């Protein structure tokens, strides 16, 4: 409807030749080429290289790299560490985020806006600066570590370990989770809680039967983003342990830029497995999402 109304006008006033519109479209398409060229060079081509070379060895096509990874305790440990740290930090992050976002909706709007701005600000603290901040606070000679040790509070916490990494990862998950989940909570109608309590439901029953089921898609979606974010993260762990903690991303990087031996094809195979894992989790998430919609 709209196009039929405006199409006579879209021919420029001064132009009369019939060929002109097509020529102009040609020029318009030309304006798209730099963008596609950049994407091709710096995104699609590296992606293609990784996929092709994960299947290549000195003597032709092979699945050998994948076999080697699946048979190597060292690489499997990297996957185990990455998966555990990502899973724990995403679940803890999601729980803290849910409690935080639910309460954030209930405070007065001036405080709310200030807190959202503050959360936006903290989302900038990630990667190398984040690792350094945590080294200062809870590293071996961190201010809190020394203080707690003096007070005798500190049992066995090492920042440069798996639990330390979970702590750091959880920290950088929080701003992301809050910013994703906070708008989604608007799906909850305030009257539902009143209605539920009129029907005799207590606070927990309301969340169990109304709140969480309604939020399920948003929670799943947020979880998947946090999880993927953690699985792909490299800078924080690398800066904290100088590449000594065994994670998939750390392994990939050291296979292409380390100073021992370089095996780009092996790095490519690890990369393919990592991305495939992320794709699998996303697909599972989509499936759950569909089911949660059908259930309603």
């Amino acid at each position: 409807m709209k196009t039929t109304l405006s199409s006579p006008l879209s021919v420029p006033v001064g132009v009369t030749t019939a060929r002109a519109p097509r020529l102009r479209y040609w020029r318009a398409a030309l304006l798209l080429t730099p963008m596609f060229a950049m994407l091709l060079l710096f995104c699609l081509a590296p992606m293609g290289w990784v996929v092709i070379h994960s299947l290549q060895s000195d003597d032709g096509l092979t699945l050998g790299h994948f076999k080697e990874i699946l048979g190597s305790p060292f690489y499997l440990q990297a996957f185990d560490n990455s998966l555990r740290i990502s899973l724990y930090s995403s679940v803890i992050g999601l729980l803290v985020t849910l409690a935080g976002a639910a309460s954030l909706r209930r405070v007065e709007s001036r405080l709310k806006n200030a807190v959202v701005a503050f959360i936006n600000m903290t989302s900038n603290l990630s990667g190398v600066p984040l690792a350094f901040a945590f080294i200062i606070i809870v590293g071996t000679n961190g201010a809190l570590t020394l203080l707690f040790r003096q007070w005798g509070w500190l049992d066995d916490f090492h920042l440069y370990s798996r639990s330390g990494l979970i702590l750091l990862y959880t920290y950088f998950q929080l701003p992301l989770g809050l910013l994703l989940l906070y708008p989604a909570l608007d799906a909850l109608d305030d009257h539902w809680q009143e209605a539920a309590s009129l029907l005799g439901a207590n606070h927990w029953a309301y969340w169990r039967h109304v709140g969480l089921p309604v939020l399920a898609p948003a929670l799943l979606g947020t979880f998947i983003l946090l999880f993927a974010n953690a699985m792909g993260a490299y800078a924080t762990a690398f800066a904290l342990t100088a590449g000594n903690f065994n994670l998939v991303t750390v392994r990939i990087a050291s296979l292409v830029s380390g100073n021992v031996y370089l095996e780009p094809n092996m790095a490519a195979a690890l990369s393919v497995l990592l991305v495939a894992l992320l794709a699998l989790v996303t697909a599972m998430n989509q499936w759950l999402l569909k089911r949660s919609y059908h259930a309603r």
Partner: protein
Amino acid sequence: MRADRYHHLVVTLLILLLAVPIVATLLYSLAQRWEATILPEGITLSWYWQLWQDSRFLTAFGHSLLVCVGTLLLSTIIIVPAVFVVFYRFPSLDRWMNILILLPFAMPPVVASVGLLQLFAGGPLPLVGTPWILVGCYFTIALPFMYRSLANSLQALNVRDLMDAAYLLGASTPRAFLNVILPNLRKGLMASLFLSFSFLLGEFVFANILVGSRYETLQVYLYSMRATSGHFTSAVVTSYFLFTLVLTWFATRFGRQD
């Protein structure tokens, strides 16, 4: 009333949790020494003085600014006309663009750098070790934000009617774009530029793996300083953080106006 107090408590705890690393870094950068006490001893600006006189830091900061500003200029020149063309001439392409711009997201930077390192190590485009490869990579980081932000602005405009009005007044397509459409995109563009700027300034993975010390950026410098005094690195982190704070402030300011 009780519920009210609970919500305030949760929000306060959340703020405290998020603020601890930032406040601690700030205090540490201002402290002469801080060992096993609740508060640091001896406030000083000497770490900052030392930092801002370090020519290696200033060079790295300059490199970062140059790469980021260069990337954003290039991105603006490439993406703004492209989004306009998509919306005005090929609207059906928008659906595909939305999938395409997600690709850089789906691929962690470490994975991308595996391929980039091999493709650009030699051959026709030997970019590894130069800032140019960072410009290319950072373009793919900025693209999703800029494309979405510009697409949202264009969706809010009635592009076709505006262009038709400009044609009736005798303007050519480029002129109508420059004088009518572009001014309307300014706010969305500025907001996405400042947002991308703060992201790019914090980028470490590409910078470290693809270029490293051959063209040292801020994050690579910061990483290489890990063995020095914690007070000094805190001063770097705080300076960097304050800088991105100003950038995000600009981003929200521009973002809020429309």
